[in-house]
């Protein structure tokens, strides 16, 4: 399933946002949204990024699609660093690289019918003639489990789950290779969420799609991912296969995150000793020195506030950035 050649290679990706603070915008500041992020995405896999609000997981998705201009670093796709391309040069890649957002209600144009919304990218990228268009739209709607009559409806007539199906159909319309799912199922009710997860897995199999799945629900991530990356305050803390990460987490932050996830088992939940993190995530305006997790880390050492831990392979295919792991104190 996984090819040895990565579909996309992300090297030293940095994204800083310049903002102005204070009531009159008199203070300039920099949000360190992403700092030195490195990973590969392999063809046909589902790679998930997890982490809490503000950890940079969505920024990663946006930046590697060149929707945010990267501050530094490279995203190599088909031999080209796509983050340095201008909008025109980017266009052929846009077709192959798609994104599905959390809230389909605000991404679908309320004045366009579902058919028009799904047909728009097909016409834009000239993927079908006007004569073929209707059939193509019907096929796409069928792919996402909607009957053809939905083509003449408007977004407000659809339920949340149906709208998310339309957003997926719109992404599929371009015959993409790679889809970023940015919290694509987070706003849905549990029973509908399961329908959309099943749909995404079916489509992946049918069309050989590669997903970058951005989510905060670890139970869902565990269900659908091949590999999982954990982010904290703009940096990757750990990246490993699903089994490795959930069975043998190395980074103290990953361990705390996993320990916070509730399981649907009352006896287990009552007897469980949680490792509860103290305090809140620091501001990305002035991230802590050294390892960014050291202010909340239960095992922080002197070096942790001084030096940024190296992003290294601790076990085969298991990447982690933690001084304690490097020095053999953990793992």
């Amino acid at each position, binding site marked *: 399933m996984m090819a040895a050649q990565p579909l996309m290679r992300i090297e030293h990706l940095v994204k800083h946002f310049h903002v102005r603070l204070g009531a009159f915008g008199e203070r300039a500041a920099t949000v360190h949204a992403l700092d030195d992020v490195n990973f590969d995405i392999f063809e046909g896999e589902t790679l998930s990024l997890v982490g*809490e609000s503000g950890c940079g997981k969505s920024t990663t998705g946006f930046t590697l699609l060149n929707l945010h201009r990267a501050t530094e670093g490279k995203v190599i796709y088909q031999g080209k660093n796509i983050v340095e391309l201008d909008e025109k040069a980017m266009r052929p890649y846009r077709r192959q690289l798609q994104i599905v957002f959390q809230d389909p209600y605000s991404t679908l144009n309320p004045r366009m019918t579902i058919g028009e919304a799904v047909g728009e990218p097909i016409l834009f990228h000239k993927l079908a003639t006007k004569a073929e268009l209707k059939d193509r739209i019907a096929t796409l709607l069928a792919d996402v489990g909607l009957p053809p009559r939905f083509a003449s409806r408007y977004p407000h007539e659809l339920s949340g789950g149906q709208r998310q199906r339309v957003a997926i159909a719109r992404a599929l319309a371009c015959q993409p290779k790679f889809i970023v799912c940015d919290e694509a199922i987070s706003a849905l009710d549990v029973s509908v969420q*399961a*329908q959309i997860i099943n749909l995404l897995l079916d489509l992946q199999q049918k069309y050989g799609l590669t997903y970058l799945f951005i989510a905060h629900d670890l139970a869902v991530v565990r269900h659908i991912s091949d590999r999982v990356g954990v982010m904290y305050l703009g940096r990757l803390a750990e990246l490993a296969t699903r089994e490795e990460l959930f069975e043998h987490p190395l980074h103290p932050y990953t361990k705390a995150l996993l320990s916070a996830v509730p399981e*649907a088992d*009352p006896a287990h939940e009552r007897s469980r000793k949680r490792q509860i993190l103290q305090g*809140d995530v620091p501001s990305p305006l002035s991230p802590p020195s050294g390892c960014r997790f050291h202010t909340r880390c239960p095992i922080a050492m002197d070096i942790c506030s001084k030096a940024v831990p190296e992003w290294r392979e601790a076990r085969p295919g298991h990447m982690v950035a933690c001084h304690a792991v490097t020095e053999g104190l953990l793992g």
Partner: protein
Amino acid sequence: MMMANSIRQEPSAKTGERLLDVKGLTIEIETRNGPATIVDGIDLHVDKGETLGIVGESGCGKSLTMLSMMRLLPNKIKVTKGEANFAGRDLQKMSNSELRRVRGGEVGFIFQDPMTSLNPVMRIGQQLAEPLIYHRGMSKAEARKRAGELLKLVGIPGAEDRLDAYPHELSGGMRQRVMIAIGLACNPQLLIADEPTTALDVTIQAQIVDLVKDLRDKLGMSVVWITHDLALIAGLVDRINVLYAGTVVEDAPVDALFANPSHPYTQGLLASIPKLSDERSTRLSSIGGTPPEPGRRPKGCPFAPRCPLAEAICHDRVPTLEGLNHDGAHRVACFVAQRKLEAA
């Protein structure tokens, strides 16, 4: 129904004494096409010292029931039938001024989004002192002292210094702690927590759940925790009511509900949560279709159109909650589940 009520014994109840008893509450909303029923003759109860979880998906009426009972909703949403007894008094018959004494005094609330429930231009300390002055008749100085203690109780570091902070100066998790402190200010007998962790990150969510658990045990109050997340409340509550389209479809002690979910909707909900033991890419079981809209309720069981087990009777008659076991602690509103039990 009446019979089931009269023979029912108290299952997980710690004292067995009713604190809140809602009977046949019907709530309607005025729409352009006339009134539409959102909550249909709901029955639920909370005993003293008990923690009840109310679970359901968006629009099932879980928040609405609690809020409308307390007259906290706009005028076009009205309770049209039924009663809600709190500590022996019917909330529906109370005057507005009597009810104001109950709200924030004997019954505390925590809402989902502290940023919209806290007053952005009022200092934290003042907001905490308000209920103490109003309900307890404390002086400003006493109230401020108590406010500091409350902030300490909910684990806000540097509690006394934070009294003069404004809500925007606190993080999301800290704001939610302030909300909890306000909810607890007057030592309520009942705390109603309406999705208090939905807007929070998972590590902060764990902090808040543990905090409420601790405080409940320390203060001995009853809690109603409204949520859409079954896993979240598994280790927190004594009993769970599963709501669907404005009715309780299953009422069971927490262990019984997870071990032996009996309503097809509860079964569907539990099955759609991904499990640790699942292989990657195994298909999750999901419930087809979507819940009915208010005003478009089906004739029989509201779940029948989506139910894999529905029979002719389900489309025709509305099932009532009936006990599944000898003491009636586990109740379900489903013709098929009830018949299976009789056959066994």
